[in-house]
């Protein structure tokens, strides 16, 4: 039985996240940071707006805002306007609601996001100890499935946190949706959602699920999944890392605290449980 000694040879490879930070954080380009004060001239910023492939950046002459729900992390803005945009590591990027993905937050955004979060927390109060997750692919590029599936490998091992994948939507508390919202998945996705018992939480995984990403909105793609099912938590990234997805699940069901406007400003990727 060569597998039994093999099974223990490597010792514990499982991450301690979220109780302790994970050493992988600094290696992963997690998100684009926007400086609170403009660090570049209007020309450089206009260039960055033009260069963005998904129109994620807006600049009205005074303020720059970046929609992480559109950002595919191509980092062109980081090159063109380095005083304003910065490529940051870290994976704790999940956000409560679509507006919370726009940084820096506009007036009143914080309050609204906090309210959405509180509403969600009330709804999921009974789920804190263990949650069952159902995944549905609504037109992804296939990479998000790898990252969701990675959650069951020994490094992430989500069962240690009471997170289980389930085959039946009738057992599911959390719906993980990936993809740009393909036309063909509109009905199957809705049917899956309807079968889930209350309370239920929807987590949109990846920038495609938030906005359609590079694919956008067209005859066969709905520009994200928020039009198809009510999304509670968005995990940006193209694709997000398994840690990012895990952060989204834990934040959604209240196992983990998350600041209203992303817990990701900390470049070391430290958690704030």
């Amino acid at each position, binding site marked *: 039985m*060569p597998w039994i000694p093999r099974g223990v040879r490597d010792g514990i490879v499982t991450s301690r996240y979220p109780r302790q930070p994970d050493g992988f954080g600094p*290696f*992963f380009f997690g998100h684009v940071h926007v400086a609170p004060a403009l660090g570049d001239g209007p020309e450089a910023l206009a260039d960055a707006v033009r260069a963005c492939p998904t129109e994620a950046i807006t600049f009205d002459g005074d303020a720059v805002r970046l929609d992480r729900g559109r950002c595919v992390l191509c980092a062109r803005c980081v090159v063109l306007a380095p005083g304003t945009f910065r490529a940051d590591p870290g994976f704790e990027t999940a956000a409560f609601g679509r507006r919370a993905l726009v940084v820096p937050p506009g007036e009143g955004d914080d309050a609204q996001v906090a309210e959405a979060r509180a509403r969600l927390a009330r709804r999921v109060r009974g789920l804190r100890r263990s949650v069952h997750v159902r995944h549905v692919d609504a*037109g992804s590029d296939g*990479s998000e499935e790898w990252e969701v*599936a990675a959650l069951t490998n*020994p490094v992430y091992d989500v069962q240690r946190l009471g997170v289980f994948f389930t085959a039946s939507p009738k057992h599911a508390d959390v719906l993980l949706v990936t993809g740009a919202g393909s036309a*063909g*998945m509109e009905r199957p996705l809705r*049917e899956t959602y309807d079968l889930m018992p209350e309370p239920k939480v929807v987590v949109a995984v990846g920038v495609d699920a938030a906005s359609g990403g590079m694919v956008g909105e067209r005859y066969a793609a709905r520009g994200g999944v928020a039009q198809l099912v009510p999304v509670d938590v968005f995990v940006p990234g193209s694709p997000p890392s398994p840690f990012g997805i895990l952060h989204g699940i834990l934040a959604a069901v209240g196992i983990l605290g998350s600041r209203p406007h992303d817990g990701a400003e900390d470049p070391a990727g430290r958690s704030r449980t």
Partner: protein
Amino acid sequence: MRAEGPAGAAGGSEAAASPPGATDAATFPATRRRVRDGARFCGLFALARPAGGAQLLSVVSADGALVVEEVPVAAGERRYSSLAHEIPASGWYERRIRDLFGIEPVGHPRPDPLVFPVPPGAYAPLGPAGEPEAAMSPDLTPLAPHVHGEGVFAIPYGPVRSGVFEAVEYLLETSGEDIPHLRTRIFYKHRGVESRFAGMSADDGVLLAERVEGVASVAHALAFSAAVERLGEVAVPLQAELVRVVHAELERVANHLDTMVRHTEAAGQAVAYAVISHHKERVQRLRARLCGSRFGRGVVVPGGIGQSLRLRPAEVLAAIAPLQRRIDEDVRRLMGTPSFVDRLRGTGVLSRDDARRFAVVGPVGRASGEAEDVRTSRPYGGYAWLGHRVVEHRTDGDALARQLVRIDEIAGAFHLVRQAADMLGELGEPASWRATVPPVSGRAIGWAEAPQGELLTVVEADGGQLAQVTQRSASFHNLAAYPAAFPKDIFTDVAFIEASFGLSIAGAAC
């Protein structure tokens, strides 16, 4: 959905139906002749022309070169005589062109909708009327059964299946345990990517190409960039080509480990699953350390690379040596575990004949004694500079043979990474990692050997703006042969056959 196919037809292949109903003189005479003479069919593409016309392009591979034959389709005509009888591999291409462009393959044995079942009365999304502004919805009507007889029933499985999978629907027709007939419906994932390319710059196009088939992002970016570079007559710096090889080969290792993870999962080998999925995670993390993305995104751009390796060549070598040693050791242990190997042996046999009829590419083809490896048959980029041997072809054609081919390819991939890193260390930094790409016009074909097999990109551009881009993934090409691997198997084998084909639905349905 139309009812088609002769009652009781078994086998599930494209060419198993009625005699050709060809109307006019056969189109593509040269393609038919070349394939008869042993050339490998690579694909059939449609390019829109002004005023509702279209240009059909057939591509075959013969003697280490791609040969293209063009057939114009007049605006009022919009049909041609189907190739699918003579060349079963073309069957899926013809169905795709029918769905998206509304061009009818006259005499196609099974002209079912494939990538986007257009509802009655609606027009084809890439047809002469242009891309529809409004959202369209595909026709989800269940398929009518093909197989009839006492006790025969049909099981639709998908698109939402148990486990974390891409959305796809299989229709299994069975009388109990065996699977005489299987059909695949991939349209659930159709996103309309092809039309999205139109009007983009080449720089934006490569970002979209990376997202056609996310698990083969590097290969898609490579094939796309190769086509653009061909149009612009750009010489890519050698060091950039070598960096591309490093990323492309690590992508291959990750994909091949992924099929192994899925095999161990299907076989219920808990420790092996943990061990192999840990190896895959290590590879993904190494890729992230090299470029920030676990999928190698943002590296390959037209003209070269967008960023150099974040580790020095010596560090790359130091990282892959223990990685390869551990993978080797555990794979050997896995292949010495009878309860695992027995599940693969004799499972999902794709005969050499079927592999040839469907011109199957990649590891699946190489396990059935077929298919070229374009890294050696049409060397591109850095591969022309590196020593690479195609893995030994196997002929058993079962899931085990496919697994063994992939194990050999993992070793080959590490060998290439080592050579590329060595050479990068010797050459030092280039003056520039990226050559300037002029605004390109015209049409070109690019290719790459993705982990799934030969990948083709047809790019048409005008004044630096993309007019049309088709990313033909190996997954699309091979899926047509998928049903041919089923007739001898039973339900519990489905997971193994699916995993051993290693296909990405996103790439097939895009």
